[in-house]
Every structure is written in structure tokens, then in C-alpha cells.
């Protein structure tokens, strides 16, 4: 199959046809390297505009790849963001010189979205200070390059907390607002992007604009969940809440379907403050449920706990013992299960994070565990986001794909409460168009375990998961983003062309985060 050449800023015909799922080269997010035309003139203009640009290999090498570890590219130069004015001057100059600018927060993308294939890499982590905390209005104003961990540290000093953030300490606020972000409380509080009250945005042409639902609302709608296409978020005002430690409960299932049904039952009935599923194996599925207050926990115990079909840890251990006692040929599986239990479970019960039986600083606990037990130089985490009624089918099909490609893998599932008033934000985003009330997300994460897999193997696996999304009319959330090659099939020509026209109007030279979507 011949892939046609595509000019930057245009979207060519999709080479991934529905009837070509096997053995056909897929179009990847990774584009060809920008050819560097006019770079020296750009550098001179940038320096005249008093913007510091670093071009050494030592500086550029930091950004050679992202968390995915399969896309590699080097920028021509790096700018560390310091203030909105500097970002504005950079974008104005880049627009005039037609130099691509790739924006990076925590660099936790997995398809190379925060990797610069030439041009300028704008590192937002230089803008990472909390500006003001309003404990009465329960809002915080922060520079958008800040990591959620650093924000949590500042808020904790005033016994406050953010609403929801990815369970990953090095996600940045700006990056998360641009893609969605989920937490184990998203079934109650929505995706992380929904907590944004207002933003300071530098548009692709360099204007510094404040936007919210009531001020420059069209820009606000496009920037939130907009994959960095319509501006660089330099500051954000976020809703916050009083800090609470968590009372955690774990229930264990041997059926993924039963666990998902129970998860959705809890979400529908607002029965818990936190909920999510983490699998160890197909026959060992963990539903975690947690509470901010003793009252909520007591209500759960009274009304909902008995309706869950999962077991406690001891009860499940007995079930597994019985299961494997009559299946001695599955001893290896049983040993793997035991080994994972011994390695992972203590991470969630480290004494320094537990006080009076409650977990403190959950994001630290979860994130450390994620990096320690699932992290590696290649984080391969394709995901699917669907409406509630399609979720079980999506997860079961994705699980079958995982089984085909990897020996061991983990699934992480959560609900995402949707805010009806934010429907305009959700268009062409991680939120599937047919979701109502809740969307559901599942990450499919293979355990690499020291094995060596080819990049093609990983990519084929990811494509197979993404194909499910196309087939079901779903979307993709959090790490995965949307692969450029899939966007027309997922959202259809009418929506994509409308957004492309908006993008062209906002970014005439198509310089900002080129090739992520457009």
C-alpha cells in the first residue's frame, strides 16, 4: 500500500482502512523530521526578542523521547518557559519564521506527542510555581508547568488538595488539562481537566489571553482537552478541596466482567468516593474502593458492600487455593500470582503512608507503585474510553488482545463523571461522543519484565487496541492520546474538518504541536 505524501497542516487520506487490519503498515504519529529551513534566521530573531534558546546536544538530549520510549526525535533547540511574555515572543517569532514548536510538560505522552522532531522544544516545567491559594473560595492559581506532586505539596501545607489528577507524580497541570487526566475519584469528580476554572493561554500567534466558561469561552473550550492545538496553557485556576486521608477497601474477583459490573453499580449509586479496577491476571482482579469520611464509609458498608461479588483478601486466597489445588498444571500461574502479591501489595501498605488505618498521600503511594512495578524505559499503555454500556465489551476485547501479545499484563479501569455543561470541551477529545453521565476508561499495560520486544511488536499491539476503539465508536484517553492516523476514523470527517479549520485560523503557519493531531 502506498502512503501518500502529506504537507504539514493537512490531513491526508487515512491509510488504515477497515479492511486492512492485517499486515499493512500503519501511519504513525511520528512524523518526518522538520527540515530546519530558516533556522538560523529564527534563532537570530528569537535572541533579538530576548528569548534564551539552548542548542547543545546536552540540553536537547533530555528530550529525546517521551514516557512511551518508542518515538525518538531531537529538537533543534530548547526554550525553558519562564513567563507568558517569553512564551508569547517565542510563538510570534516561530509563527513568522514557520518553525514548529513542540510543548512538553512532564513528557508522559506515549506516542511521541511531546517529542520534537526538529524545531523548538518548549519545556513548560520552568513555569512551575504556585501563584495564589484561596482557601475560602477553594481555588488555586498556578503556573501550568507545575507537576501535580509539587502542587499537592503546596496545597498540603494548608491542608488542601486538588480535586483529581493522574496517579502519576510527574504529570504537569498544563499537559493534563490538555488531554484529560483521570484519577480513582474521577467517577465522582470528573476528569482532571474538568477542575479548571480559568486559564491564561498564549495562542499560537502569541496573544496572551485569559479564558474561562464566561470569558473567551470558545478558546477555553478548545484548549481544555485540545491536545495543545489551540494554545499554550501558562497559568491555570483550579478548583481545590480540603485534604482528607483515605479509608481503602480492596475486593478481589476472578471475573473481570463481574468486577466491572460492580464498579459501575457503585458509580451509578454514588456509593464510594474512589473506585477503580486493577488486574493482576485474568482470574485475579482487584476492585479498590475508598472513602474520604467515616460517614461515607459507614453508608457504603451498610447499603452496598453486601452487593459486591468480590472477596476480601483472605477469602480470595482460599478461592485461589482451591482453584489451583485441582489444577496443578497451572502451578506457574499460581506462583506468578503469589509473587506479584508479595511484591505489589506491600507498596500500598507502606507504614509511612498509613496512619490510624488511613492512607495518606494516595497519589504518591499509587505513583511510586506504578513507576516501580509497571514503569520502564518503554511505557506501552494504549487505552480505550467508551460509554458505560460499551465498556465491558471494550475491556474484554482489549484483554484478549493483551493475552495475544504478552504473557502478563495489567488493566486499570475507572469511571469518569461527565459534566453536561462541559459538553463543548469534550468534542473531539478523550470523552467518547456517545457517553452520557459517565465515560469509562481502561488502560492496557503489558508487563515487560525484562523481555525484549521490538518496536513493531509494541506498535502492532497498540494498533490492535486502538482498532477496537474505532470499531466500537469509542475514544482514547490519558496517556495514549489520539494517533493522527486514527482521528478521521474515530471522529468522522465533518468534526475533524471543522476542528482543522479552527486550527488553521488560530495557527496560520501550523507550528504548534504539529503532527499530534493535525
Amino acid at each position, binding site marked *: 500500500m502506498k502512503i501518500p505524501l502529506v504537507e504539514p497542516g493537512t490531513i491526508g487520506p487515512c491509510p488504515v482502512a477497515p479492511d486492512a487490519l492485517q499486515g499493512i503498515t500503519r501511519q504513525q504519529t511520528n512524523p518526518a523530521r522538520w527540515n530546519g529551513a530558516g533556522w538560523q534566521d529564527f534563532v537570530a530573531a528569537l535572541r533579538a526578542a530576548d528569548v534564551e534558546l539552548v542548542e547543545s546536544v546536552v540540553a536537547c*538530549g*533530555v528530550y529525546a*523521547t517521551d514516557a512511551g520510549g518508542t518515538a525518538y526525535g531531537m529538537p533543534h533547540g530548547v526554550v525553558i518557559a519562564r513567563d507568558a511574555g517569553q512564551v508569547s515572543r517565542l510563538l510570534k517569532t516561530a509563527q513568522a519564521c514557520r518553525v514548529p514548536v513542540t510543548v512538553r510538560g512532564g513528557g508522559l505522552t506515549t506516542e511521541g506527542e511531546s517529542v520534537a522532531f526538529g524545531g523548538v522544544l518548549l519545556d513548560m516545567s520552568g513555569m512551575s510555581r504556585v501563584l495564589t491559594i484561596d482557601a475560602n473560595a477553594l481555588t488555586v492559581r498556578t503556573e501550568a508547568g507545575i507537576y501535580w506532586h509539587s502542587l*499537592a505539596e503546596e496545597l498540603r501545607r494548608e491542608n488542601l488538595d486538588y480535586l483529581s489528577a493522574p496517579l502519576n*507524580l510527574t504529570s504537569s497541570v498544563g499537559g493534563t488539562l490538555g488531554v484529560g487526566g483521570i484519577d480513582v475519584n474521577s467517577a465522582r469528580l470528573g476528569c482532571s481537566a474538568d477542575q479548571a476554572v480559568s486559564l491564561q493561554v498564549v495562542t499560537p500567534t502569541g496573544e496572551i489571553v485569559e479564558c474561562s466558561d464566561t470569558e473567551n469561552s470558545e478558546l477555553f473550550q478548545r484548549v481544555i482537552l485540545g491536545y495543545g492545538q489551540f494554545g499554550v496553557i501558562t497559568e491555570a485556576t483550579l478548583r481545590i478541596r480540603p485534604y482528607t486521608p483515605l479509608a481503602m477497601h480492596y475486593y478481589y474477583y476472578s471475573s473481570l466482567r463481574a468486577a466491572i459490573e460492580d464498579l459501575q453499580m457503585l458509580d451509578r449509586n454514588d456509593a464510594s468516593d474512589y473506585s477503580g479496577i486493577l488486574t493482576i491476571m485474568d482470574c485475579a482482579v482487584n476492585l479498590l474502593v475508598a472513602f474520604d469520611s467515616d460517614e461515607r464509609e459507614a453508608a457504603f458498608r451498610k447499603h452496598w458492600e453486601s452487593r459486591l461479588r468480590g472477596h476480601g483478601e483472605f477469602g480470595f486466597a482460599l478461592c485461589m487455593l482451591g482453584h489451583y489445588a485441582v489444577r496443578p498444571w497451572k502451578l506457574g500461574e499460581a506462583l506468578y500470582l503469589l509473587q506479584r502479591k508479595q511484591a505489589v501489595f506491600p507498596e500500598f501498605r507502606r507504614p509511612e*503512608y498509613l496512619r490510624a488505618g488511613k492512607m495518606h498521600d494516595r497519589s504518591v503511594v499509587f505513583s511510586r507503585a506504578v513507576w516501580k512495578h509497571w514503569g520502564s524505559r518503554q511505557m506501552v499503555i494504549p487505552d480505550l474510553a467508551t460509554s458505560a454500556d460499551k465498556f465491558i465489551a471494550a475491556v474484554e476485547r482489549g484483554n484478549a488482545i493483551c493475552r495475544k501479545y504478552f504473557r502478563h499484563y495489567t488493566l486499570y479501569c475507572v469511571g469518569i463523571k461527565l459534566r453536561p455543561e462541559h459538553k463543548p470541551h469534550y468534542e473531539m477529545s478523550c470523552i467518547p461522543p456517545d457517553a452520557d453521565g459517565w465515560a469509562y476508561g481502561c488502560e492496557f499495560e503489558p508487563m515487560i519484565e525484562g523481555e525484549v520486544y521490538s518496536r513493531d511488536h509494541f506498535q502492532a499491539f497498540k494498533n490492535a487496541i486502538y482498532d477496537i476503539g474505532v470499531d466500537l465508536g469509542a475514544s482514547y484517553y490519558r496517556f495514549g492520546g489520539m494517533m493522527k492516523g486514527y482521528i478521521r476514523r474515530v471522529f468522522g470527517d465533518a468534526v475533524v474538518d471543522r476542528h482543522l479549520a479552527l486550527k488553521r485560523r488560530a495557527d496560520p503557519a501550523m507550528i504548534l504541536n504539529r503532527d499530534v493531531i493535525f
Partner: protein
Amino acid sequence: MYSRAMPREFPACSGCGLCRLVCPMWRDHRDPRFSPEGLAKALQSGATALELAAPLAACSLCGACDPVCPEGIDLSGMIMDLRSRLPRRAELAALQAKLAQAAASAKAPAAGALLLPGADLRANPSLLARARTLLGLRSADDDGADIALALETGGDIDPARRRQLLGRLDGRSLVVGDGLLLAALRRWLPAARLHSLGEALSNLVAIRRRLASADFYVIEARAYHADYERLVVHYDRLRADTGCALNLDLQRIAIPALTRSLTRKSAPLGDEDVTQVRWMLKGLAPRRIVVESLADRAAFERACDIPVLHLAELAEDSMMKKETPHACG
């Protein structure tokens, strides 16, 4: 998988950035080049030590990056190794030679547990005497000050000199005042019973009962991070027993009071240190600040008007005489 026993090297860095979250150098510069991750990634791109001279000099070697690295990379070891490849300032080499000469002429200590006070405590004889009495320990004439300086500043350590020091210390129970030397001794004397000065003093009943919920207790960062898995439990108990606040971040990593780098080692306290101290105290209103390290005291005294005490100054004079010898067994 993280393992202290088998630390990995810079090629294993995946760029997760967890080290940045706890790095005072990063907090000060907000530039990824000034972080362990930035250094490891630069090395992966073929950078030389000379090209990395600025961040290497800016690092305070607090060691906070080591326990948080999910790949188990010996990041502070990497930085010390890179420092050793940089041209060394003549006055540091001269000071190391002078300290080594003094150590060579020191008498071999009699058998038994020892206190290795380190340069800061040795420079304060009355506090050293107090710590010695409280712990019931003799202090070693040769406390490895030259080796501690070499570790910090990237100097060569003569193998014969190292053997001499280890020969004098092997098989003993040791309380070590210098956090960087303590971390090295853990590697060199794996069977030895080693404690930081802060841990040893904070184990004493006479000290513990003088700590209160209105105190802000400042853990010495280097010693803490070098033995994180064990000490996080120790300090968690200390907090639970006394109610005092500790200089721990969300990850229970000790925030160093000083961001003093190699280049600013002999300079007066700077604005960075004041900023760091203010960050540590943000949201707190302690009655007293209790420090394990004398180096931290000056920073607090400059940045705030809250009384600052060294841990050894907490015990009442009358209680000191009642302590049983050697609190670390």
C-alpha cells in the same frame, strides 16, 4: 526494580523525572539540566563531565534522588563520580592533604564503639563534648574528615589511606556525624553497625522526652537518604511518639535545609538557602527548631527568628549523666 544492593548506572534512566520532584537543585533552577535526570540523559547523549560542570557544582549531594529512583540508579554516586573527573580547586586538594596528614598521625583508637564527629561538630568542641557524653562514646581522632572532603569535592582517595581508616573502624559500632561519609562507610563496611548522629541522639530517652508537638525537627538529609528504608520507619515512630513536625515531603524524603553546592561551599548563606528554609516552614508555626546537623542551624538562624537548637542541646544537663553508655548498643 529498585535495589540498593545492585545499583544501576545512567543508561538505565528512563526519564521518569521522579528525581526532580525531590531535588533542591531543580527547585532552585527549574531547568531539567539541573537535575539528576538531566545529567543522566545528557550522559546518554554523550556529554562529558566538563560539559556538565555547572549542574555538577550546583548539586548539594543531599541524596534525595537515590531512594525515589524507580530504576535503582545510584544517582548521587554518578554525580560524585562525574565530579571526580572535573579539574579540582587547588585549595581543596591542599585541605584534603592537610587533613590526611593529621589523620595519619592520629593514634589508633582503643576497642569499642566510636563517634566520628565530622568537621562541623569537631569545630564546636562544647557541643561535641555534649554529644559524646550523651552517647557515652569516645570520639575518634581519625574521623575520616579527609575522605569525607574527597567524597564531596571529587578528590582522589588514596587506597592505602582508605584501608588505614577502615582498618581502624572495622568491627565496631559507629556513630557518624558526616552523612556523606556514613553512606560511603555503609558500602565499605557492610557488616558494621552504623548510625547517623541524628538517629543515635534521637534514640535517647533524654532527648526524645524533650521533643514536643510544637517542635520542628530537621532531619539531616544525607544520612537519611542513604538509609531511607530503615530510617523512614525510625522517624515515623519519632513523629508518632513526640508529635513533632519533620522536614519530610509528600514522599517522606527529607528536605535539606541548605541548598549549598560545591561552588558556594565557603560562601555566605545565600537567598536560595533562605528560600529553602521558608519553604520548609511554610504552613508551620513551630515554637522551636531542632536540627541534627550544625550546618542546617545557620540557615534557620538567618531565615527566621524561631529558636534553633541542636539535638544534643535538648537534653537537660542533669539527665546527661544518667544515660547508659552508647545508645546504639
